[in-house]
């Protein structure tokens, strides 16, 4: 029903097995960070991989989703599920507004416009009272899911985050393999032709953008709940750049690439954190190596080697 090919089904089951086993071996909070980043990267990949539009402003949706989830959680004491959904709605609504402007141009202009619009969102978050400016929203309670599941336990929270990730992942896969997704790929390959076949390409691009940003908002909201904090870092343009790198490293337009990219990037940030600015240098160097030497990314190269679409 999700359109997985045989090798993809095997890879998916392997991923599920890893998601189930890992929390018993590794630190669950770290894994939750990985899963949020993975969902973020998969949502981002929907735009770059299947519509061919590079957004350099996805941090705006990630950060705003986080802010809204954290704020509603802390002030209104809503249910965790509501907070995450509100995060997604915020991402989607913001995506609708910014996407409406950005899809007027394509290629590098699209990248620059999304970057500039996200910068505007950043300045808004810096000034707006509800975000807490430089301090961010701190000490957000994790609260309860559906009113009876206590999320303060790390393991319980982990299963919720895992469920959100798998749900998001399958949604994206379903979108890509729907007739709608086929039209998107058609637009990516040859937009004038799609237009001449009677498709309103701008509408398709905008819907794809909104879906991508809504899922990004969900990822942001989930992350805010996990860590109990929403800060300016998540709206900053460096986060936008990081997610581009994550997806590029894993493999643009591959199914499992963004998730693997998130594993690599988050581990790197985690274990290299003590080296300060060297993290940025390493990231930049990886960026350049990816672009120069292996543009297919890790999963893309493996898939190319095995002659499979992963």
């Amino acid at each position, binding site marked *: 029903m999700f359109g997985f090919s045989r090798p993809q089904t095997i890879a998916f089951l392997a991923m599920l097995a890893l998601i189930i086993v890992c929390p018993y071996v590794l630190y669950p909070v770290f894994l939750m960070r990985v899963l949020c980043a993975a969902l973020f990267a998969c949502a981002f990949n929907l735009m770059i991989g299947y519509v061919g539009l590079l957004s350099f402003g996805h941090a705006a949706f990630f950060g705003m989703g986080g802010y809204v989830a954290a704020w509603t959680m802390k002030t209104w004491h809503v249910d965790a599920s509501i907070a995450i959904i509100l995060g997604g709605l915020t991402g989607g609504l913001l995506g609708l507004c910014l996407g409406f402007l950005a899809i*007027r*141009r394509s290629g590098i202009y699209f990248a620059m416009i999304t970057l500039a619009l996200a910068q505007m969102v950043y300045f808004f978050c810096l*000034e707006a009272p509800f975000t807490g400016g430089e301090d961010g929203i701190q000490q957000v309670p994790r609260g309860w899911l559906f009113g009876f599941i206590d999320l303060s336990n790390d393991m319980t929270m982990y299963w919720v985050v895992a469920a959100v990730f798998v749900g998001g992942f399958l949604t994206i896969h379903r979108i890509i393999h729907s007739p709608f997704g086929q039209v998107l790929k058609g637009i990516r390959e040859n937009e004038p032709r799609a237009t001449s076949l009677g498709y309103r390409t701008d509408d398709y691009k905008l819907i794809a953008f909104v879906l991508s940003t809504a899922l990004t908002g969900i990822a942001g909201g989930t992350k805010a709940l996990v860590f109990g904090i929403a800060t300016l870092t998540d709206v900053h*343009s460096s986060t936008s750049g990081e997610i581009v790198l994550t997806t590029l490293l894993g493999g643009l337009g591959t199914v499992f690439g963004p998730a693997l990219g998130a594993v690599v990037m988050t581990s790197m940030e985690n274990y290299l954190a003590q080296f300060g*600015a*060297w993290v940025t240098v390493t990231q*930049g160097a990886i960026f350049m190596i*990816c*672009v120069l030497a292996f543009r297919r990314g890790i999963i893309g190269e493996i898939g190319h080697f095995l002659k499979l679409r992963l």
Partner: protein
Amino acid sequence: MIMIFGIPGPLLFGQLLLGLINGAFYAMLSLGLAVIFGMLNIINFAHGALFMMGAFVSWMLLNYIGIGYFPSLILAPILVGIFGIFLERTIISRLYKLDHLYGLLLTFGLSLVIEGLFRNGYGSSGMPYRIPAMLQGATDLGFMFMPNYRGWVVLAAAVVCLATWAIIEKTSLGATLRAATENAPLVQAFGVNVPRLITLTYGGGVALAAFAGVLAAPIYSVNPNMGSNFINTVFAVVVIGGMGSILGSIVTGFGLGVIEGLTKVFYPQASATVVFVVMVIVLLTRPRGLFGKAA
């Protein structure tokens, strides 16, 4: 005291001057971006990092070798320009046959590396660069006091921008350049070494960014983030102006600086976002940009 629209004159003119200075940097940076884009079809995301390098090189020249402001105004752009040529020859030129987005991603990675290295070496707090003795003090213009250095920045930027415009629009080298932008294979068929022209263009655009960096050094402290603070706004300026015309970039740059300065007087909360608001309006009414050509 003169009052204009209920605002004290000196305050208004002071902010106007600050706006002009920001505008001067927008103009120089977006001009370099436009020239590079025209020739290489690459959006140089490393532009902000190279701007920062210009400031750092002039700081190093002063503190390590004792070379003062005015010589480094020429020397630093040359050094950074050579670095740019090296980058173009070794790395960037490998991407010309690929989608433009890869050039963007590569130069973005490049800017991360450059900024990260400088942050490692010099921290992110920033180092002061003294205004040269000749340009210290202020002049009474009658309606306001103008710090000499700030006046000099606006003047120097305007001269350099116009000189770049003149080189591109009025000289034979510029004519070749414009022809190569339109149709590189044909120009190459006439015996022009187009790859070398591309390399020189990149070096020139980078030198322009470095020149802006040297001018900026005494105003903002010399720190590794000075480029990235600027460059996001510069991209908005480029979208507003469209990358079709040289003069367009200059006018848009200065114009937006002034608009930003005026916003600081009348509605300070919006001063950081006004450029982006203008961008939204332009996108809604003229998606190609004010001076952009139809694709």
